[in-house]
Structure formats: structure tokens, C-alpha cells
């Protein structure tokens, strides 16, 4: 599909018919007919159908065996909103988003600004900071569950050096989410840093130079030239951070399994703990649908409002 028609669809303008005429006239209809069906089929089969199925299942009281028969309407949604743990999970998701935006992205940007310069060791440092992102989520979770262990963990030995008793961060409802947030930042800041470094390196240096010649201070250059040029990347980064936060699951499971007392669930781990592992497919599907609606609403609004130019 041409960029033009894609943009037309994004902005929702009624330009589809003229696009079709053009596609037919320059012979692209043939390639469209040839290449679109496989992708469309796969997309329908593995994305659209399951979403539809989940919506359908969410109306049933069903344990996943056989086919659903007990229709209970919107009761599952009521059950979900009645569960205290779901509210906590939702708040935790918001917390992760907030921390990603307020701590992780500025940290990544600062490091990117430093490491985008060429100096001895800059490449090695980039690799070092990027490494956590390469690590599998479950492995990261396990590593940190060892680090946090109040008896044998790294943190415990640090505490002991100072003669203090180590806290069991993962075992307390007050600190479990905090411990997960630290891991989230540690794991993903490298990814955002790399995005920023790539953008910085692709930036037109002449603009920076021109500003310097005009007598702008380092701070002014940063504030009025570099960061504005990074806006498209920042918007993309924010998008990734928010969607990633909403989907966070595989870090939580090895660390706390959402506990204690549902204090560190995200919406997805809540879905798993309260839907899948309890064989409540209808209930789980209802959570899935809620999550889907949140994600889609966010994605569309964000595209509309912030990423219009791209």
C-alpha cells in the first residue's frame, strides 16, 4: 500500500475511492490481490478471530472443557470489576506507565546524549546498557528473585555488610511492586537509549553547529535544537513504553507471581492468575476484552493526537 493511501486511512479522510482508482490504473491492483490475501488471512485467523472468540467466551460461565453452554451475559465483567485485585492490577499498570515516562525515558535520553558522542568506551558502554534488554524476561525475573532474596541474595549481603537485617522486598505488599518497578527500569531503559542514540546519529549536525555559531549555550542547543529534533523518536518511545507497560507479564511471574495478596499483579498477570490457572475461561476472556479495549483506545488516540505528522 502506498504511503499516500496509508496516510489517508490514518487521517480517516474519504480518499479511499480515488486511491482505488489510481491503484487500478497503474497496475498495482494485481500485486495488491496477490500479496494482500495471505497477510489478511493470517491476520484474520490469528488476530481478529481470537479477539472475537474472547468477546464471545466472556459471556459464558465456562471452565474451558468442551464447548461453552452456560450464558451469563455481562456477569463476568461485573465479577471482574468486583474483584479488588483487578483494581490493584489496573493501578499497578498506571504506576508502571508513570515510572516509565517519568524516570525511565529521561534516564534513557540523558544516557543517549552522553553516549551518542564518540569517545573511548562509548560503544562498550552502549552495549553494556543495552544488554539487559537482550536478556529473556523470565531469566531476568529469576536473576532478580535471587538478588532480592532476603537470606542468600546479593541485596541481603549488601545489607549485612552494613550490619543491617535485609528486607524481603518481594514478600511484602508494600514493597513488591517497587521491586518490580526497579527491574522494569533496569531492563528497558537500554532499549529506549538505543532508539535515542540512533535518532541522534541520524540528526543533521549542521543545525547544531549553526546554533553554536549563533552563540547558543550547550543547554540552549539541547533545549531548542536537539530535543525538538528528537520529538518523533520520543513520541515513538512513549508509545512503546506505554504499550509495553500494559502488557507486562513475564517479569512479574518469576518475581512474585502477582503476590503477596495480589499486590503486584499487572492486568495480564491478573488475567493469568485469576482466569487461566483457575480454569475460568469466561472470566479471563472478560479481562482480556477489557485490556484490549484499553490498548486499542490508547493506540488510536495516541496516533490521532501525537503521531499525526509521521
Amino acid at each position: 500500500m502506498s504511503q499516500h493511501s496509508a496516510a489517508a486511512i490514518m487521517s480517516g479522510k474519504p480518499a479511499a475511492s480515488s486511491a482505488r482508482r489510481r491503484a487500478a490504473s497503474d497496475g498495482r491492483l494485481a500485486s495488491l490481490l496477490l500479496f494482500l490475501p495471505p497477510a489478511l488471512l493470517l491476520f484474520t485467523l490469528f488476530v481478529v478471530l481470537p479477539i472475537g472468540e474472547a468477546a464471545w467466551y466472556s459471556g459464558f460461565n465456562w471452565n474451558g472443557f468442551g464447548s461453552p453452554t452456560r450464558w451469563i451475559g455481562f456477569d463476568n465483567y461485573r465479577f471482574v470489576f468486583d474483584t479488588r485485585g483487578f483494581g490493584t492490577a489496573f493501578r499497578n499498570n498506571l504506576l508502571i506507565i508513570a515510572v516509565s515516562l517519568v524516570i525511565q525515558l529521561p534516564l534513557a535520553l540523558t544516557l543517549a546524549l552522553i553516549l551518542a558522542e564518540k569517545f573511548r568506551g562509548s560503544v562498550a558502554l552502549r552495549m553494556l546498557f543495552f544488554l539487559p534488554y537482550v536478556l529473556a524476561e523470565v531469566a531476568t525475573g529469576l536473576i532478580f528473585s535471587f538478588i532480592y532474596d532476603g537470606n542468600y541474595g546479593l541485596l541481603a549481603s549488601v545489607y549485612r555488610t552494613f550490619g543491617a537485617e535485609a528486607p524481603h522486598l518481594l514478600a511484602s505488599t508494600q514493597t513488591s511492586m517497587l521491586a518490580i518497578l526497579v527491574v522494569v527500569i533496569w531492563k528497558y531503559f537500554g532499549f529506549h537509549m538505543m532508539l535515542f542514540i540512533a535518532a541522534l546519529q541520524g540528526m543533521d549536525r549542521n543545525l547544531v553547529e549553526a546554533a553554536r555559531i549563533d552563540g547558543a549555550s550547550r543547554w540552549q542547543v539541547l533545549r531548542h535544537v536537539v530535543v525538538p529534533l528528537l520529538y518523533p523518536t520520543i513520541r515513538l518511545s512513549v508509545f512503546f513504553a506505554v504499550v509495553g507497560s500494559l502488557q507486562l507479564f513475564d517479569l512479574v511471574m518469576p518475581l512474585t507471581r502477582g503476590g503477596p495478596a495480589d499486590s503486584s499483579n499487572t492486568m495480564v498477570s491478573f488475567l493469568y492468575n485469576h482466569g487461566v490457572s483457575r480454569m475460568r475461561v469466561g472470566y479471563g476472556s472478560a479481562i482480556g476484552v477489557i485490556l484490549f479495549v484499553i490498548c486499542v483506545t490508547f493506540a488510536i488516540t495516541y496516533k490521532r493526537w501525537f503521531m499525526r505528522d509521521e
Partner: protein
Amino acid sequence: MRFLTRLALAAAGLTLAAGAAAAQTTVRWLHLEQNPAQVKIWEEVARRFEAKNAGVKVEMQFLENEAYKAKLPTILQSKDRPHILYSWAGGVLKAQVEAGVLEDVTAGVGAYKDNLSAGAVAAFAIDGKLYGLPYTVSQVGFMYNKDLFAKAGVDGGAIKTWDDLLAAVKTLKAAGVTPIAVGGQDKWPLHFYWTHLAVRLGGKPAFEAALKGQNGGFEGETFQKAGELMKQLVDLEPFQNGFLGFKNQQALGFFGDGKAAMNLAISSHSATQRALAADKKGISEEKLGWFDFPMPAGAKGRPSDTLGGVNGWIITKGAPKEAVEFVKFFISDEVQRELAKQNFIIPTFKGAEAALSAAFMQNVAKNIAASQYHQNFYDQDLGPSVGRVVNDATAEIAGGSMTPKQAAKAIQDAFKQGN
């Protein structure tokens, strides 16, 4: 031409080979056993069965306990599902039977079931049809470290009432010993406290009434009282630091390392704690004590009532008949005695318990034999959905985030919600 003939011959040869392969039956067997010493015996049993039955291959698969529970519905509906699965009987088994994913093995087992303990076999029968066979039973009770008890000056054998237990916890704490190790992250080790208190307080009638929704169901007096008594214990802070972050395996290892004096355990954990201890030895036979769950004041249950599991093997739909044969072989007198001799299990084959060599396990076997009311684990008996709420709610009593009243209400609400 000659080439074509050769090709045809080769094709015929291939077909023949394929025919021979089809005659080979593979029995897929999924288990959860973590103790390598025990798994080794099981492997030998499988090889012996293969040697006796030409053309049959037994393939062992392993899943960790929690992972298995989460995957079970998917496993059961897969085309490549194992033929033999681990089961705790109870409500989970009932849901599986209703879904039609299990094989009715009443005919395949036949009169063989008469060799086994009738009560245990009954756990695998639903509406008069048999879906599997039990290979072991277990009892929940306190195992304790005799050295640590002696250090604090506590007599384990004298703990008979709930107040005795509370007093022992206080004495142990005063002596600087962590009284109890518990795997709070898994939640079910905590649900033992609440469940066993309910078994003690109300006996069989209370549970049956709750199932019928009488006397306020699980929100009734017995179950609220169970929560309150549990809270009395929790308020003494008897558990190791950070217990809500411990998995059961870690807690057993912690106990096996001699870092806590007690563990409310399933009887078979007496062997597991050894495998999970840092030195792989754990608490030795003579240092390991056992006392039955204490009686609270005003309890209506009998002291002989037991809480525990009935574990066995269920056969999935469409499994070859060799699967049933293997299960029968696995639960034969010979194999049961072999496992009992090393004190891994309390056998279900009548008379095999004579092979138990440790006084600890002999005592448990005697308890179960004497019990007139053997309550299956609530989290299995009540089915996956309600059972998990029992686990959640009791873990929250332990964590202090729910009052006993709220916990009982949460369980009753889940029970009413059904699914």
C-alpha cells in the same frame, strides 16, 4: 526398468518398517515428582514393564506442580495429551470427568481394585465409574526438628491442643528459633492451617453442611472460627522472615537446613525436605518428629479425623489399554513395597504398608487407617476456581490483609459464584 523394480522394493520395505513401528505402543506418562531418588525407582519400574510387555514403550514426562495445574486444561484437550496423568482427585477430577476428557477404566481395572484401600479407590470413582487408581495417601501434620525443640525446651510429643501449639511457638521464639517455615507464595501450604482448623472444629458434618449451603456455608461459624484461630497463630509472627515470598520447595529446604523448627507438611514431605536441603541430607530420620494437627478448644471433630491427599493416576480419553496395565503394574504389591521401604509413600496396596521402615511413616499410615473422615485438600476438593480462592483468602489472613470474617466471606462468595 530395473531401477523401477528396485524403487518398488524399497517402497515395500518402507511400508513394512512403518507397520512394525505402528505395532509399538507408547504410553505417555506425566508426573510431578521432584525427588530424584524416587524418580529413579519409577524409571526402573517403567523399564521392567517394558521388558515384560514387548512392543510397549513407557515415556515419562515431568512438569512442576504449579506449572502442571496451570497447564492441565490445555494438556487434556491436546491431541498429544499424555495417557497417564497425576491427579489429586476431588473437584478437579469431577470437572474433568464432566468434560469427558477421561477414560472410564472400570472394566480395565476390574477386580484389581479390591487389592487397594477402598477409601482411596472411592476418591477416583465418580457416579460408580472408575477413572483412575490411587497409588498413595498422605496426611497433613506438623513435622518438627527435634534438635531445635530440645534447644528451646519444647516437647513435641506433648503438643495436643491449639493452645499448646501457641505456647510452643512463643517458647521457640523466646529461644531465638524460627518456629515455623512455610511456603507462603504457593499459598496452599497456608491453606492447610485454615482447612485443618475447620476439619477439627466442625468435623465432617460442618463441611457437608457448607457444601449444601447450610449454616451460612463457608461463611458460617466453624469457618470464621477457623480463621480467628489461625489469626491467633499469625499474630505471634511464627513464620520465617519473608515467608510470603517463599515457594513451598524453598520453605522445605529452609526446614531441611535446620533453620526453622516446624513445618505443617504433607507426610511425604519428610522425604522431600531431604532432597531440597542444601546438603541433600536434611533432617535425618531420628531427628525428625511428627505430631498431629492439635485440637482447638470446643472442637466438634474427632482427634482421629485427618486432612490429606489421595494421589493417583488418571487415564485420559483414547489412551491405549496398556496405559491401564501400566498403572496396575505401578500399583502392584511389589512396587508399592519398594517405594514404602524407602518411606517415599504411604501405599494404597493393602498390606504393603508393612514395608514402611521409618517409625515416622508407620505412624502416619496408622493414622490414616484409623481415620473415619479423611478430608481431601480443599483446593483440590472444591475445584480449581473455589479452591484457589481458599488459598488466596487464607494467605491474606496470614499476610494480615484480610480479617477472618472477610476471608470466609470471599470463599463463600466464590462458592456461590460457582465457575
